[in-house]
């Protein structure tokens, strides 16, 4: 259950949520658990509440919340929704898994 080859790379995620809603907390907890399991120790999560920081949402073209963006390593990947299934999320973000 370890990512292939990219042990030194730190994954930088930004998760945009809109206020204190069920969707928000589900997304946060799902992302944290995915990262803990699949990317232990080499991930960073930035949490942006678009209600508090709407300019940021405008700048990053966040339409729907929750939105997860992987800014690094490239390519940039986007996933919207509560991230309730780990595998498709990892695939979408280009995170290879050696032993699913």
């Amino acid at each position, binding site marked *: 259950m370890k990512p292939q080859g990219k042990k030194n790379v730190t994954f930088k995620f930004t998760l*945009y*949520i*809109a*206020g204190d*809603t069920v*969707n928000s907390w*589900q*997304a946060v907890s*799902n992302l944290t658990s995915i990262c803990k399991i699949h990317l232990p120790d080499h991930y960073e999560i930035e949490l942006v509440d*678009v*209600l508090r920081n*709407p*300019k940021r*949402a*405008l700048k990053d*073209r*966040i*339409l*729907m*919340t*929750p*939105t997860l963006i992987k800014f690094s390593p490239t390519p940039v*990947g*986007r*996933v*919207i*929704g*509560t*991230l*309730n*299934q780990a595998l*498709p*999320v990892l695939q*979408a973000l280009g995170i290879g898994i050696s032993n699913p």
Partner: protein
Amino acid sequence: MIGTGTGILGAKFLDRTALGKNRQNMHAKRNGAKSLRPLVAAVRDKAQTGVAGLDEITCGGLPSGRTTLLVGGPGSGKTILALQFLVHGARDSREPGIFVAFEETSKRIADNAEGFGWKLAELRRKKKLFFMDAQPMPDLIQMGNFDLGGMLAALDAQIEEMGARRIVFDALDIVLELMPDMAVKRREVYKLHEWLLARKLTAVITSKASGDENLSIGQDSFGFMQFMVDCAVVLNHNVVKGVSQRNLRVQKYRGTSFDENQSPFVIGKGGMEVGVARTIGRVDAKVTDERVSSGVERLDTMLSGGYYRGACVLITGYPGTAKTTLSGSFAEAACGRGERTMFVSFDSDGSEVIRNLGSVGIRLDRYAKNGALCMISARTISGSAETFLVRIKRLAKEHKARCVVIDPVSTLSQSGNELTAHGVAERLFDWSKCDGITLVCTSLLDEASSESVSGSSLQISKIADTWIHLNYLMQAGERNRGISIIKSRGTSHSNQMRELILSSRGVTLTDAYTAGGEVLMGALRWQRESADRAAKEIGEVAGNLKRVKLAAEEAELEVRVKSLQVELAAKQVEKELLVRTTENVEGELSQDRTRMRQMRGSDAMKEGRQ
């Protein structure tokens, strides 16, 4: 907390005083005319759209602070209408706007709208217009539930920054497609609607719909939106017999009256334009007594002075009855007076018209050269009647035309436009009246249709002010052109048919030969006229002869009188002579006697001598 509370109260108080007057009016109305009309109708303010015609249909514009749904099929003009609404707000109504583009990128929308001359770049620079690119990324992966919170938060920030009052969500269906089921879609749309209402934004949401209008309600997956919003406008784009016909219909508009019919519209140079007939009761055409010449002297006489300025003149006739020539002479006369004139020919090229009219002495080339006359050849233009009208209106405006000739106007009703042409023709007449333009239209009559049935296929003869009919009279192997005035409102006019004669010197009218209940034209008229002339000559000669004879008799009598007078004089002289002779004789006799007496020595003589 206390601070904010008083603030709100203060604002409410201000609000109330400002509205106080309106409310009183409302009360007065309510008490005066009970339940005649719903309360809201009178006071609801409206946001002007800047779309010519749409504001008339909706009695002022879209509902201010409410949401309007714009549905239509692909290419029906939703985006243009929505953008025009925003541009008008930003430019003319001091209402900055935001355009949320779900489908096309803002750059493409701006590029596409460049042709309308809306100066989007300038408005964007001045922060009166903002484009938000909200196209879902094509590589977007969706996992689990989501909502539109991010977009609304971002919009909140933008609205606050620029003080936006109007907002457009273009192609909302795109983002709704991403939602997993109907319930979620519905929830998101309701949330969006609530959000809009809370911010008192005048919003337009566009959404695709199937081409068939009837299907767009209910059966469409987003039909519920039509029930939610305060105003819904349906755009249609049909093709009738190969001709594109666009029309628009306000489906609902809560709390106000509106025109419920389908209205044709076109997307022209300056954006969208909806064709509306003037509403009943608005009399605003300027009426004058001024006459303008028809270009044919006798025709002016027949109309007791010419056409009225601002009148709509209809010239009907079969092919070749000199309709174009008659309208050409009107154009020549107008240019001669120095009035800017536009000649729209659907039949032939502008230069062809000038050449052809030149052959009958109507010289338009000089006016075309000096710019007084604008020749428009519309032979190859195809499109809906509405498009014609818009183009004619624009061209006339550009040329500042005071007189317009449309030859022939019946082109409007060509294939595919049968249903709309009549309305377009009516609006054409209406427009020319409002602008005080004297309009001469020719209309081709179908060879088969009879004059009594319709007059013209557009049925515009009843709205024309003056209707001149040209026809042929077939006699003795000839076709001769006849002209008659069927009607001319407000002027006395001749009821007689005249013969129209075209020659290289121009158009002239001649009295048709009408004596003895016959109407003769052309060679027959000439024959009859020359026969008449001969008969007249003979009569004249006979009269002369008689006169000479009488003069001779008179002279003879005079001579006789003279000779008698001479004779009389002679007799008188003779008579005098006779008297004198008699006296002389008597005198001599007495002298003789005296001498005799002297000679005899009579003593009586002596005494007498002393």
